[in-house]
């Protein structure tokens, strides 16, 4: 192999190579991000308005949390179409529970909120378990399982609420948490950062992380190497759904009402898109959460920028589509150049 290494050094390096090596070093995404931010800084000073930054950070946070979960599932070679539905289900269930409790015991706000949140998380665990068990034990294609649970979860959500927003959550939950600022930043941002950090730690420094990579990279190998694959598969899907329902809880706290239409397919597609432009392989085995966070940031800034630049909303989707494909195409191209050495 050194033979090759030496060879590479021997062979003279062109400007072009230097560029592409830079791209490969940091990855394409950060460069695109910087470029876009710089561009916005020039053409639209509103972009750096404090509130606008808050908006971007907020929407990034929601997306990043969901995308982090999505990434874990993608790494084990899976897929989770149900995240949007989980968000909706969480939102409605939590809101209903809180509303009911708040009505019966108006004074114990703390308890009400705690129970409500737990109920919300329970939804995540529940759907996650269905996904995980079906994939791991029944060996059903993740795509179809989560397509099924997507339908189930949103069905339950609508059944509970008939799509009518659920009010009556304690004000404290909405005003002092959902819409509050801590040290000048929206609460969501802190939580998102904490979650990203946690997932990063898991990926880099724990068995769980490695096993997730291994299972996605080569299931058979993982099994014969004594990795209890099925268990970890289930766990991964549960983690994904729970992250989704955390996002659901935050959004609900933010809006002040439970919505059966929250999340939806949009969130599902965006979470996967964020992961994929961050270099997560849909074939499994590859993906890092810090990049995914950047991916989420990229998408949020992109839509925000188009709105600030007053791009016709019908045109926006087209631009989004093209940029998405272009970004990934560039990334692929870079990887290929690297392989050529």
């Amino acid at each position: 192999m050194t033979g090759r290494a030496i060879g590479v050094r021997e062979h003279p390096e062109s400007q072009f190579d230097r560029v592409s090596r830079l791209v490969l070093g940091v990855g394409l995404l950060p460069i695109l991000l910087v470029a876009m931010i710089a561009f916005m800084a020039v053409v639209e000073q509103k972009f750096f308005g404090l509130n606008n930054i808050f908006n971007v950070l907020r929407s990034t946070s929601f997306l990043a949390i969901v995308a982090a979960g999505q990434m874990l599932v993608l790494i084990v070679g899976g897929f989770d179409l149900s995240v949007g539905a989980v968000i909706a289900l969480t939102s409605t269930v939590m809101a209903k529970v809180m509303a009911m409790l708040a009505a019966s015991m108006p004074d114990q706000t703390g308890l009400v909120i705690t129970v409500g949140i737990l109920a919300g998380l329970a939804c995540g665990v529940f759907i996650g378990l269905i996904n995980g068990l079906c994939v791991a034990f029944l060996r059903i294609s993740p795509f179809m399982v989560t397509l099924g649970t997507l339908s189930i979860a949103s069905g339950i959500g609508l059944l509970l609420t008939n799509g009518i927003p659920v009010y009556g959550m304690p004000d404290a939950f909405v005003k002092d948490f959902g819409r509050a600022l801590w040290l000048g930043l929206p609460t969501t941002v802190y939580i998102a950062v904490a979650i990203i950090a946690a997932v990063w730690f898991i990926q880099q420094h724990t068995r769980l992380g490695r096993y997730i990579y291994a299972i996605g990279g080569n299931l058979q190998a993982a099994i014969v190497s004594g990795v209890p694959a099925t268990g970890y598969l289930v766990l991964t899907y549960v983690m994904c759904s729970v992250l989704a329902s955390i996002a659901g809880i935050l959004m609900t706290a933010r809006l002040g009402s439970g919505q059966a239409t929250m999340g939806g397919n949009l969130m599902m597609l965006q979470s996967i898109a964020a992961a994929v432009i961050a270099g997560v392989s849909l074939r499994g085995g590859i993906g890092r959460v810090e990049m995914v966070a950047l991916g989420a940031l990229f998408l949020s800034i992109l839509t925000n920028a188009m709105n600030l630049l007053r791009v016709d909303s019908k045109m926006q989707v087209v631009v989004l589509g093209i940029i998405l494909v272009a970004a990934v195409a560039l990334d692929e191209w870079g990887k290929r150049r690297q392989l050529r050495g």
Partner: protein
Amino acid sequence: ADWFPVKVYDASSGSNVEVDYVPLEKASKPWNICVLFPHMKDSFWVAVAYGIVEEAKRQNVNMTLYEAGGYENLPRQLSQFDDCLAGGADAIIVGAISEAGLAKKFEEGIAAGKPVISTVNPVSEAKTTAKMFVEFDTMGEQTGNYLREALGSEEAKVVTFPGPAGSGWAEAFNDGFKRAIAGADNIELLDEKFGDSGVAVQLALIQDALQAYPEMNVIWGTAPTAEAAIAAVAEVGREGEIMIMSSYENQAMLDALNRGDIMGFATQYPVLEGRVAIDMAVRALEGQPLMTFVKPIPDMIAKDSVDKIDMSLVLAPADWTPVYSVQAQ
């Protein structure tokens, strides 16, 4: 207390004649009536369903209701129409996802001797036995006019959030509103932001608009828009200085109005539209005299007018949960 008589426009002749609408006492036999909704995902359609169910009970007919799960599911509604015919319905009531899309089905139904009643969603050209709706643009106009009166001579800078591009209704509402404010030179339309009418999406749109148009002081849009707007405006601490208007009604809007979070919203009396639809179907089946085109008279519901209006024709009771079928006694 009976809900009738109610003042409506009889547009059968082509011009709007204000009349008192009085339904039949009872159906002569328990007909099977099939009802198709675009979806039941918000309290607007729940309200229509409430009207349908209550009237079906009152007139003692069998009723089955199908919802297509959203405006993007035209093919599904077409299939449901077929299923209704196959299921042996006597008459079919449709809240059409798309007039053009269902025109064919209407003809088939009528050809098969089944009365086809269209309600709520506008049907201008397609062949129907009878229909009831107000053009969405009229409602948009309503809100526009109200805004003009409310403003008087004040300056207003508006951004509209009509709803999903391509839905048809979003565009219609928007056009009506624009027509109303077109004349007024104290009202400026800054931008129109189409987008999925989920609260989350609307919230993002509004926040960006708040940045892009600091001068904006009127937010006009769907009910979810208004809901999102309340949160967004509160976050930037501009309550009171930004007026929020909804182009149609739902439970959330009513609550918000009572809390004073929004300026007002237009209503087309969804419950009434449901009730009348059933009555039309029965009349058609029994060969009773029938107005082939009825328009409810839309109203603007605002702080001042809220207690003058019969809410039992606007929204379902808060505790009512939809039922999808009614069995005649």
